[in-house]
């Protein structure tokens, strides 16, 4: 199924609320999911698994809960500052770093080891993004990792490039032109979570809530 970026972000926002994240974090969650999609990475599965951590009472491993304040702290920290934490969905750290670079000018690096071996390095600054990985096929496989985030002026990683800024822009254009493919089960689960913020209908809400009766049939 082909989705639009807006559709993805709206559903992720609502799903995050439905999973219990505060409003401001749900706004960030939508943003991070949108970044993954623009980068040509499947966004629904990591977001759905990550919200699952929250629902299971493991908020400490939930990237969408932990990353926003961590990135805030890195923005105001001196260059070279390093933060390390265990995240259920480390790929979301790449999205968080890139959006912080875009929004508030953070320059930083994120790095982690893939569960099956191999490493990932991300560097983002206001005008540059690079994602490097020596096992790109394993990049999207589920698995927690200990992620190190560092405020740093320049990248210098040696891993094979998955995409740089030009590659990111090309992937983004592809998504805009052709739509976005998502993992159907994860998407369905996100929609179910999003439905948690809906209010059951009643006769009163059907009429008074919308301010309409049969007035729509009078002409």
């Amino acid at each position, binding site marked *: *199924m*082909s*989705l*639009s*970026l*807006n*559709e993805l972000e709206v559903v992720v926002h609502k799903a995050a609320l439905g999973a219990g994240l*505060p*409003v*401001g*974090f749900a*706004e*960030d969650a939508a*943003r991070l999911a949108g970044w993954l999609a623009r980068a040509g990475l499947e966004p629904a599965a990591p977001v759905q698994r990550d919200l699952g951590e929250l629902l299971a009472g493991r908020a400490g491993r939930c990237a969408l809960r932990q990353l*926003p*304040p961590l*990135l*805030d*702290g890195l*923005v*105001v920290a001196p260059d070279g500052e390093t933060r390390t934490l265990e995240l259920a969905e480390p790929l979301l750290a790449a999205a968080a770093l890139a959006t912080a670079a875009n*929004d*508030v000018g953070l320059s930083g690096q994120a790095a982690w080891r893939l569960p099956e071996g191999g490493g990932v390095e991300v560097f983002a600054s206001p005008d540059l993004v690079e994602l490097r990985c020596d096992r790109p096929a394993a990049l999207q496989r589920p698995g927690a990792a200990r992620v190190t985030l560092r405020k740093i002026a320049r990248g210098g990683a040696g891993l094979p490039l998955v995409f740089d800024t030009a590659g990111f822009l090309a992937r983004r254009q592809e998504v*805009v*032109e*052709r*739509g976005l493919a998502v993992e159907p089960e994860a998407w369905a689960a996100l929609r179910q979570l999003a*439905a*948690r*913020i*809906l*209010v*059951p*209908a*009643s006769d*009163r*809400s*059907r009429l008074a*809530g*919308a*301010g*309409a009766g049969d*007035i*729509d*049939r*009078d*002409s």
Partner: protein
Amino acid sequence: MPAEAPRSDVFHGVALRPPSTVMRLARLGSFFPTRLSFMPALLRRLARERWRLEVPRWALDAGGYGHAVLTLRSGVGDAVYSLVAFSHELDPALRSDRVIAEAWDATFVLYDGVPDDAEIARLGANAPLQEAGRFCPRDLVLSRANRSSRVFEQVVESLSRGRQPDRAALTAIGYLMRTTAVYGNGKFGIADRVRLVERPELAGPFQAEMMTVYLIRSFVFRLVEHLAESRARERGDPGEGRRAAPLDRELKRCLGIGNATGLGMAPFLVNHPILLNNWILARETALARVRAQPVSPPSRERLGALLARARRHCAEWQVDDRRQMARIEGLREDLERLERRLAAPRSAAGARWDALYRWAERSLGLEAQELLVSLLLETHPEEVDALCETMGAAERTKLDPAMTLGRLAELIAEHYDWALAIDLEEPDRQRLFWYVSEEKHEPRLGDRYREAGAEREMPFAVARDVQDLAGKLAARPRHETVAAFLADEPGLRHVVRRIQTVALFPYAEIRDSLVDAACLPIDLLRCKLSFFGAAKYDPKSDRWTRVTMFQGAPLPEELDEAAAADWCFPAFGAGQALPARQTAPA
């Protein structure tokens, strides 16, 4: 050269009206369309670039059911867009304008290019399902419409007998079909807005949606003529009445497309603060620029002519809603006073429009003040039209973690004094809650003290959030950063981001509580609809309104720059000339 170099917010000594004046619900709910509105902006472009309408496909049966393709083609480039229309048989008992409806008289897609048979088949399988269908990035807008049960049939019957329908009945209603939703920006898989922003003709806000409605208007005219011809043919009686008449072009000009708008439109303004800012900022900048202009004899004559037309327009504006009707009656009286003021010698030589505006601010009600704003903008297109290019918003709201809490407190004092002044101990001050219903995700309003669901409310209780934040800030050191504060107060992240946004975009926030028992959502609807260019607001409750879109607008075959530039506040009563000249043969 001007003696005073203009700043962005002051033009020859005339400042923009402050957000504390403009961003109040009562004023926003008094807005009228202006030259900056999205419908007139679209038509000016279509005329300037000599876009032309073609109908490459018309596959409707004698009952008017089937599909059609109407194509708009640019006269200066390669751009082509098509309205793919599907006309359906509908049980009148199912004809509802509510979001919760499941079937409609007609469904539409604005398509990027000209669809082939396979694409028409794909759209035919999905467009009738509306929200339950799936679409792709070549589909730009999704919409549906219902026939007016009051006049649609009358028009078909009259035309089928070779007669024109009753003008008074037509103009009183103003449309033959009304849309009940016009979806853009990625809904149900259609194109994301970002796909359109590099195209000049669709880069402005809601230009694709307005183009869709404009094409629906043309489709409806062809549909009634098609049905009239079929009926005349079926009747088959020889002699008078055998041949159907085409709908008179003057009557077509009197007809727009109706629109039924409910609460769904209101959250948009809250959820898109930067876009709201840019709309209002363009309007306020235009007003300040025009107020700074001298009152020249031609511009005074022009304003007088526009005012006379607006008075006729308002004289024809009749609604059932008592509150709005009382406002209209007050407006009519105010416009009479405005006309006398304009005719008075003291409003003549040497003055700037600022003097008249200031008099109106002191002397007239909000409806008349805002109508004058629309008229003033009409008199000086050279000061106004370029601002259309500034009304989009590519930016997102951002959080600045490095801001000190002292600065954040200053921003609250500067921009949210209205929120701090609300007594939240008084239950009515936050009686309402906004929510999304399980029923087709329809936005609704509830009473938090009487109805279930308030724990799932949308975050529109801005005053409550701001007061909560201000209280917690008071207990923290002023030099501390937002980053440190939010690490302890994650629930306030969204309101900090909102306040920081408003500091950069001062017209981003509506400065009244949307959860107050006295809040009238209809004010939000009218604000947004005025930016669309919709007119003849016809509230059916405080949460629901009908409007007419493109009423009085030139037809595609009439579009030239003069016609497209001058169709505001049309009046249609007997003997009224339409605002723009006729430019093409019938």
